[in-house]
């Protein structure tokens, strides 16, 4: 192992541990807000990196690796750990390891520790949940454990912050005397066959030790840093020696357990007898009950949904009016011209369009991370796994699907808890089918053209039922699309549930706060950039056109206004209406008219389809501008105006039930939301999936709209 590293690079410590060991609490304790989220190269696994100050004021870098049970991975998350640690050339290869173990479950949390210990890296074992151990009357002889495992041991609590000072001192010692923290002897004794395979693999990777060689021999099929020739070589070696990976894995695991179990037993003294029902078991008797469990889940989700819907309204209104007023103020205080328009209608409107989602994102993640911290989410995943799996989804997808009813953006961001990439991708792809709150204004405007405001059976408003029908349609589309993707997409990853259900715990508010902060920040910074650019492009399309057309539109509008003796307000609205017709967006609307004609739409609706790509609710505002009733009007005045619109050639009404139903269906299915596409791009790390999503959703929307129009007209 090389001991001298370039001094320009700070000492990097990998934070590792089993899932539910309380690793992120420790990470947050050590780094606070000095953390940022990046990615492991080539995959969509989040990599949290933070700085921590040691007692001597020097800084070390902490990298939070995904929770892992062993070096024999089940998911992409866990593979990251193996690929970063078995290759000393990897950019994430650390200088040392901080291993977090739940002290109340030491018998199973030490497996990975013993594997890490054999890598030849300096390592510290932190026994987490010292506070819980004390409460349960569990005593650990840290010295004995340290001596027998040959690893230095610190007792801490990530929840209370207990022992953090000691831990930092220990980390400083590790930085200063790196070599003395490396275990002298590997714990695991390889067989002859294993050793041969390991030695062969070790030759390929410079500076790897024998255990790293063994890991490479186990995982050569997928390790990304190997070439095809090297893979073939390793396959041949395995064949010649009769090295069977799966069998060797099991034997290694058994040998390790056999070695450390007696050590743990001798170092631990417990007063609890086991067998009695714990609080967790009692709570789960109700919360995961076969009947009450799902009911409680739906009530909880209803509350979450309600919170996003209701609580977010106030801050959202405030943000919207703030940007509205700022825009107005700038317009009236700066000279008229394209620069002012760009600033107000492009940039400020775009910024407003980004920031307006913050309340929903913050509230959703506040509640979701509370449920996650408490330990409830694992239960939800357990209860719905079977239902979701029949559609190619995962138990955890249910959370995203339900929150998609408020807004697809936070919902898609919440899919990161799904380990299996295929299941996560399908969840991301189908969540926008769930009718979100932005569709409501569109539904309100259009539903009246299709369904009369009548009541049946005394209580049910027909329009309300139709409203519910549109929501149901979205849910059906989401499940159907998921089922289709399940058949199309391939994966080599095997899907497992095998989910640990952690004990219920009081949430650590610091962790919740940091999660909310991180989600909001990453939305604003990453998705926000894309939204801003698209919104500027849309502004340009709607405000500019061939200059001759635009000038003509203006003079014609003025002439009409003078002839008809219109008021100042009416004149302004008329000019806006004629200008949008002459703009590039208007040209675009007319250009797509042949395509949308079979759906029963004219070019005016075409313009609204183009502009409402920014966000669905823009449909209403655009309609208002086109029909020159001023964009400040509410949904109902827009509807009244649309009701009298007639086709100039045939003289027939434009908004017949057929056209309106066709438009409704279009908005149920179509991916009319640039922000969602931006988030999908961010979450899938490629433009491929947002494009796929846009194409199939629009295609489905087109077919449904066309079918409805053809059937009704």
């Amino acid at each position: 192992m090389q001991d001298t590293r370039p001094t320009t690079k700070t000492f990097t410590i990998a934070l590792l541990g089993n899932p539910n060991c309380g690793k992120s609490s420790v990470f947050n304790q050590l780094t606070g807000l000095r953390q940022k989220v990046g990615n492991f190269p080539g995959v969509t696994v989040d990599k949290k990196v933070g700085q921590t100050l040691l007692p001597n004021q020097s800084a070390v870098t902490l990298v939070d690796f995904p929770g892992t049970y062993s070096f024999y991975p089940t998911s992409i998350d866990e593979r990251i750990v193996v690929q970063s640690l078995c290759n000393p050339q990897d950019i994430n290869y650390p200088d040392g390891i901080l291993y977090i173990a739940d002290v109340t479950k030491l018998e199973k949390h030490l497996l990975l520790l013993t594997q890490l210990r054999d890598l030849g890296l300096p390592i510290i074992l932190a026994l987490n949940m010292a506070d819980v151990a004390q409460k349960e009357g569990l005593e650990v002889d840290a010295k004995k454990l340290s001596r027998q495992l040959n690893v230095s041991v610190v007792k801490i609590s990530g929840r209370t912050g207990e022992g953090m000072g000691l831990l930092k001192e220990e980390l400083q010692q590790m930085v200063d005397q790196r070599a003395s923290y490396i275990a002298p002897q590997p714990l695991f004794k390889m067989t002859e066959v294993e050793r041969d395979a390991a030695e062969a693999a070790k030759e390929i990777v410079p500076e790897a030790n024998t255990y790293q060689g063994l890991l490479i021999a186990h995982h050569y099929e997928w390790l990304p840093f190997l070439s095809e020739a090297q893979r073939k070589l390793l396959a041949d070696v395995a064949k010649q020696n009769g090295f069977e990976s799966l069998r060797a894995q099991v034997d290694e695991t058994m040998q390790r357990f056999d070695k450390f179990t007696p050590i743990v037993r001798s170092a631990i003294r417990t007063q609890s007898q086991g067998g009695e029902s714990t609080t967790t078991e009692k709570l789960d008797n109700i919360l995961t009950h076969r009947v009450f469990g799902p009911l409680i889940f739906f009530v909880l989700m209803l509350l979450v949904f309600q919170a996003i819907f209701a609580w977010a309204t106030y801050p959202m209104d405030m943000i919207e009016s703030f940007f509205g007023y700022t825009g107005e103020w700038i317009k009236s205080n700066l000279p008229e011209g394209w620069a002012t328009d760009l600033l107000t209608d492009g940039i400020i409107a775009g910024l407003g369009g980004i920031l307006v989602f913050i309340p929903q994102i913050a509230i959703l993640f506040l509640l979701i991370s509370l449920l996650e911290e408490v330990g409830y989410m694992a239960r939800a995943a357990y209860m719905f796994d079977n239902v979701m799996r029949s559609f190619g989804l995962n138990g955890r997808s249910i959370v995203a699907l339900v929150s998609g009813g408020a807004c697809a953006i936070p919902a898609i961001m919440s899919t990161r808890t799904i380990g299996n990439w295929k299941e996560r991708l399908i969840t991301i792809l189908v969540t926008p089918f769930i009718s979100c709150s932005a569709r409501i204004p569109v539904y309100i405007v259009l539903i009246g053209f299709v369904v009369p405001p009548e009541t049946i059976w005394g209580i049910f408003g027909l329009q309300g039922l139709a409203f519910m029908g549109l929501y149901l349609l979205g849910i059906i589309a989401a499940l159907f699309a998921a089922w289709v993707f399940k058949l199309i997409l391939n994966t080599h990853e095997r899907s497992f549930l095998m989910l640990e259900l952690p004990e219920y715990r009081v949430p650590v508010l610091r962790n919740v706060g940091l999660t909310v902060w991180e989600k909001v920040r990453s939305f604003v910074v990453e998705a926000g950039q894309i939204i801003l650019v698209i919104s500027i492009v849309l502004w340009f399309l709607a405000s500019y056109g061939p200059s001759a057309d635009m000038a003509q539109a203006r003079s014609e509008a003025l002439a009409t206004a003078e002839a008809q003796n219109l008021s100042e307000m009416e004149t302004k609205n008329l000019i806006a209406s004629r200008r949008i017709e002459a703009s590039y967006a208007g040209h675009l609307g007319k250009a797509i008219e042949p395509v949308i004609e079979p759906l029963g739409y004219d070019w005016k609706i075409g313009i609204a389809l183009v502009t409402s790509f920014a966000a669905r609710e823009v449909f209403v505002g655009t309609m208002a501008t086109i029909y020159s009733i001023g964009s400040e009007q509410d949904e109902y005045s827009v509807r009244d105006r649309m009701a009298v619109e007639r086709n100039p050639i045939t003289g027939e009404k434009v908004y017949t039930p057929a056209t309106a139903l066709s438009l409704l269906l279009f908005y149920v299915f179509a991916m009319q939301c640039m922000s969602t596409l931006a988030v999908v791009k961010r979450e899938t790390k490629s433009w491929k999936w947002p494009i796929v999503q846009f194409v199939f959703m629009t295609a489905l929307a087109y077919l449904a709209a066309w079918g409805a129009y053809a059937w009704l007209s």
Partner: protein
Amino acid sequence: MVATVQQEQPLSATPRGTAGTVSHFNDPNIGSKLMAMGVLPGSRVRVVRKSPFGGGCYVKVDNFFLALRKEEADSIVLK
């Protein structure tokens, strides 16, 4: 461990609420994952309840809890 019926049977076949001791796993792939999670030959396991929509179960293993799919539970053989 009280010896009751000494017959090997998969975990999913045991009546809900009865505890048993893991003998081995009949799917080595699932078995190796389960072992990494701390389910070992010799561990005490008990099916606490079946999941609401079928296809899985809630299992207590020594001092922790696991949610398992049916095929995962099937691979655990009790003695």
